[in-house]
């Protein structure tokens, strides 16, 4: 029950954080650029048109009032109109968000799976060539920006060895009705197995480009977690009871060792969402990040603030999810209700 309270407290704190985030976004989109109305109409627009837009954006009011108007509108789902698409920002977000979530979701799966696999291998074969190779790879993995991986993939798989699709989410030959917005899921619902495979193939390269750095970093954390725990008394005790080595590894050693790995997941997902801005641009992936980066390059202020707000919400929810997973791995938190006590 105390765990429920812990989650409730986290949710309430998130509301405070979101309010603060909305202030930052307001400052970035409305205060920093000077005159958003002039910016959106261009330098040649006549002054009276600019003044009219200023009035329409309530920019003739004092700043706190402007913020209040913006916030109450945002709470009702009105994020303003996009300058570029001429549609309400919230519609654009609804259209593009699933593609980004799909990418980040599969990147997270990839990271967890390979981080645990490689980390366990490195710990199991500690100080052998396997361990050394995974360590060396992790140094490179951490040092290669996701956009560099993406560009190298395009060069390799787009031109020299075209075995995987490098652009967009699906081949045009498949027409799948959009239900959830998640291509793989939609194809499954439609029962079109070739389309599922096609959507999956389109995911591979962007997902690997996004996940590579985090995977190796987490593999190293998993390795050191296992190595630390392997010398603990509870493992020796289990060995003394005659429990098989396999059971010890999978039931008793892996679970506590994964706590630091999952804790870092929150940070790695942050990096993934940030890097998605460049990776989606490179792979021409029609997601929220590509929409966001285009908005940024065209100084589409309403869209910028909408995208940053939505990404903040997604990220805060992910972090709460990560905390819940950590709590399930760590009975001290689940039962004690407070992390680290």
């Amino acid at each position, binding site marked *: 029950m105390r765990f429920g309270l812990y989650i409730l407290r986290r949710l309430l704190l998130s509301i405070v954080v979101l309010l603060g985030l909305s202030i930052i976004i307001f400052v970035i989109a409305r205060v920093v650029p000077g005159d958003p109305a002039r910016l959106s109409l261009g330098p040649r627009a006549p002054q009276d048109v600019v003044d009219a837009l200023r009035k329409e954006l309530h920019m003739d009011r004092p700043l706190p009032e402007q913020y209040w108007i913006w916030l109450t509108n945002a709470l009702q789902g009105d994020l303003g109109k996009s300058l570029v698409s001429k549609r309400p920002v919230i519609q654009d977000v609804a259209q593009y968000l699933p593609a980004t979530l799909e990418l980040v979701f599969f990147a997270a799966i990839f990271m967890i799976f390979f981080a645990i696999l490689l980390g366990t291998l490195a710990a199991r074969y500690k100080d052998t060539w396997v361990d050394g190779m995974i360590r060396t790879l992790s140094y490179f993995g*951490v040092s290669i920006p996701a956009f*560099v991986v993406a560009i190298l993939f395009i060069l390799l798989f787009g031109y020299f060895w075209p075995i995987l699709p490098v652009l967009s989410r699906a081949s045009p030959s498949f027409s799948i009705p959009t239900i959830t917005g998640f291509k793989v899921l939609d194809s499954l619902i439609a029962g079109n197995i070739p389309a599922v495979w096609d959507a999956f193939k389109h995911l591979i390269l962007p997902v690997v480009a996004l996940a590579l750095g985090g995977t190796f970093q987490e593999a190293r954390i998993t390795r050191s977690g296992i190595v630390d725990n392997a010398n603990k008394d509870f493992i020796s005790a289990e060995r003394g009871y005659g429990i098989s080595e396999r059971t010890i590894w999978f039931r008793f050693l892996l679970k506590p060792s994964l706590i630091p790995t999952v804790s870092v997941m929150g940070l790695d997902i942050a*990096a993934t969402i940030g890097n998605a801005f460049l990776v989606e641009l490179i792979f021409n992936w029609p997601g929220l990040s590509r929409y966001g980066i285009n908005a940024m390059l065209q100084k589409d202020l309403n869209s910028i603030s909408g995208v940053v707000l939505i990404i903040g919400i997604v990220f805060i929810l992910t972090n709460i999810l990560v905390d819940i997973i950590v709590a399930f791995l760590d009975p001290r938190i689940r039962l004690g209700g407070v992390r680290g006590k």
Partner: protein
Amino acid sequence: MPDNRTVSLTNNYNGKLSGWSRFWTGFKKNWYHYSRNKLSVVGLAIVLLVILLAIFAPLVTPYPAHAGPYVDYPNAGQPPSAKFWLGTDPIGRDIFTRIIFSFRGALLMSMLVLAIAVPPGLILGLLAGYYNGTIIDTIIMRITDIFLSVPPLVLALAIAAVLKPNLINAMIAVTVMWWPWYTRLVYGMASSVRNDYFVIAAELNGASRFYILFREILPNCLSPVFTKMALDVGWVILIGASLSFVGLGEQPPTPALGQMVSDGARYMPELWWMTIFPALAIVFVILGFNLMGDGIRDMLSASR
């Protein structure tokens, strides 16, 4: 019979060392811990090489003029050769020269970002840690949480986007999102030593707040801060390259690593050297700083 060796050893270390030899002993000890991992030494070599290349760029590069607005159509789009080591771009500029010159902006950016972001982050963390549990703690740490609630690259992109695109504004954008990490780090350290006896003793002796914060608590937090700074140089270069990749960093004709990669991507696959070599240069520099950062971490954690 007295053991002469023991006597001479203790004589060497009886506290009457000159400043230089004390420094030298400390340096030897730290270097021992640093160089135990050979990769750290490789990292240091890479970092020194990059710094020297950046400082002496006009002297070491074959065509310093190519780092600016320069056009040489007869040599446009040349593949790597003895004359142009890493090839040339579509207007005939030497890629090698431009990569070396772009190290300047990358290093300058990471140094300035850390120099500006670390002190306020550190002071806020100290304050929040010292006034642990009070309203000051709550305010500072909630503000920190807010800045950490958006992925750093997203916030940096947004800030850089609304400002005029150039290197200074890219630095501002990265700095704005960098300080909270130090606040959180120092907060953890400061609040854990806040109730230790030496702090309470200083308080009872009537030491000023300033003295307690900066002379009693701060020295206990510095080692992880230095470690993080060493590792962060690589991160800042990475974020800077990401910003310049989308055109929000250094503006042409001044070269920047990310900008060179994205320029080259438009000429793939024919002029592949335009993309591959700047990309490898990014990896090379970041790898060097990461390896060096790991070495510094080993060194500082061994000497504690």
